[in-house]
């Protein structure tokens, strides 16, 4: 589909919860300078599939991933892969804003600190400032960095979580419905932010808001009942879907 080598790719990936198969033989490539959106009705396996990109499914009891997922051609489920380092390279933003009950500064500084990315306090402060700037939050919080991260509004909390993810300088950012708990204004800010972050990071966003997928992404994958129905350029998919099921979904016939 593209000439460049994909940043991440999945080949024949299946995810099981116990006996139930949530994702069925999905293959997909994620490119570096694109935003890829996963859309589909609730329970179609898009979030589960997303979580197999940074092995967050490992923490779910009974979850099992089959198939091959690679980051820069390296199998991330290989025994030699360090899962802690993988999650630093593949950051994640969750559906519900989940800042730590610590200060704003500590929220952002935590990642760089545990990975030893800053040699000195001033360097750490620099990392925190640039992460907050890139997350578009700096001007709002620069005077109250010692306030609790949980005291911010929902939209600010979510941008704080994005700042926390980019502070460890990841290569890929996975976003699991990052705006579904936010009001339209906060959602617009997050979407704007995603546009600004594109190019620096490979971004994968799960959403069930089709307009959002159309606005922020260049590639869209449509999932239904655990299978990947269609994957292609966003513009093409929303104007001329190849599959009947995709067409039904994006025109609102079901979902």
């Amino acid at each position, binding site marked *: 589909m593209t000439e460049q080598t994909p940043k991440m790719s999945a080949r024949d990936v299946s995810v099981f919860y116990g006996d139930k198969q949530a994702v069925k033989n999905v293959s997909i490539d994620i490119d570096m300078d694109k935003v890829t959106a996963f859309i589909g009705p609730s329970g179609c396996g898009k979030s589960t599939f997303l979580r197999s990109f940074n092995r*967050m499914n490992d923490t779910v009891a009974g979850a099992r991933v089959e198939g091959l997922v690679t980051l820069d051609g390296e199998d991330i489920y290989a025994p030699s892969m360090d899962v802690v380092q993988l999650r630093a390279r593949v950051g994640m933003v969750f559906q519900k804003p989940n800042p*730590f009950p610590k200060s704003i500064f500590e929220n952002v500084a*935590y990642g760089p600190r*545990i990975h030893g990315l800053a040699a000195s306090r001033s360097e750490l402060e620099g990392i925190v400032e640039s992460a907050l700037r890139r997350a578009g939050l700096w001007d709002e919080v620069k005077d109250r960095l010692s306030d609790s991260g*949980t005291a911010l509004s929902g939209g600010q909390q979510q941008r704080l*979580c994005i700042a926390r993810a980019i502070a*460890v300088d990841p290569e890929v950012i996975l976003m699991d419905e990052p705006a579904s708990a936010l009001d339209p204004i906060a959602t617009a800010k997050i979407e704007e932010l995603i546009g600004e972050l594109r190019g620096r990071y490979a971004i994968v966003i799960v959403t069930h808001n089709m307009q959002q997928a159309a606005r922020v992404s260049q590639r869209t994958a449509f999932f239904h009942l655990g299978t990947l129905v269609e994957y292609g350029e966003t513009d093409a998919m929303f104007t001329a879907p190849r599959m009947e099921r995709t067409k039904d979904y994006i025109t609102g016939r079901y979902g």
Partner: protein
Amino acid sequence: MNSPLPAQADRTPTDWNAPAMQKRIARRYAAERRFKLFGLAAVVLSAAFLAFLLATMVSQGWRGFVRTDVALTIDFKAAALPVDRAVLRTPGADLALAGAELENTVKGAAATQFGVGGEDAISEYAWLKVREAIKQDPTNLDRAVRIPVPASTRLDQALRGDGTAEAQALAERLKAAGLVSTGFNADFLRMSDSTDPVAVGIWGALKGSLLTMAITFLIAFPVGVLSAIYLEEYAPRNRWTDLIEVSINNLAAVPSIIFGLLGLAVFLGTWEVMGVRFGPILPRSAALVGGVTLALMIMPVIVIASRNAIKAVPPSIRDAALGIGASPVQVVFHHVLPLAMPGILTGTIIGMARALGETAPLLLIGMRAFIVQPPGGFTDPATVLPVQIFLWSDEVSRGFVEKTSAAILVLLAFLLAMNSLAIYLRNRFETRW
């Protein structure tokens, strides 16, 4: 897709103002009021019991902190004790004065001064007070001095109008002569057990409790919390961990005296293996063995409370930390444990309070000994506050009644101090969300 609901023509519209409806509302309000009343009554009842308990203890116990002194005049010049004055400045003074029949001199002085039965007016340990006075100022030996000494239990009871006829008469005489004084009994907080209720003190038992609680905490808290972390965060869910969980829950309900038997058998027992005798592992009657036994008893409580606290930490916090590459140990120590700490400390308070009030298991491992010297360390024979209370409540002498209540007050104060410290720590850990 959204077809309208079929019209319900057969159903009469609900009349919200009908008498039956009004009656239902009235019944609902009545039920509400009744429930509130029952709740209030329950609170008042428990508060009344608590107030009654405290009032009884304080009204009886305060006397335990008060001592009646009798001013005794002793003419040492006339008695001419055969004591080398130089020795009085040395550690040998105690022995020298005891050898010089000081005790009999003091008793004699009391008999002379107070008349027949006078030596019964002063406490058995009155001469020890005189000894202190002489050691402080050896020139006392060259003149007649007036020293307030503790009154005997007999006189003390009589002064309260609760003595024999002779004692009553003696009390009246002494009071009329202005020789009787009362004051705060600092010795009660300084001394240890004794056969004479006037001479008993709580310090030995208090120190024993402190040492025992220290051992209990140092063992039960880390082991309990680490077990809880392992079981919650690392252990796989299978039949074995289910079995462990059931066992822990059952252990928390095992009567405490069983733990005493366990401590006796394991720590104080002896075994003979191929002609070689082993054990006992720990010294008998000591704070060490008591602390270890109580630690075993409260560990299940701490494990259960800690597991619940750890379980209550929102999974989103774990996800957040894992999502930026924290290792499982970092997730536990940086995020889960700080958030679970208030709950863990609450469980620890409950466990420690239970351990502090425990008597039965300690009786079995020999902590009911008659301890005159406060324990110097963890391996010295010791007793603890509840056991001391139990022992005193068993005494025949009337003087022990108020001492028992006073000891209960000390135990309550200890409990309050311990809990306040724990609550203070818990509030410091508490995170605002």
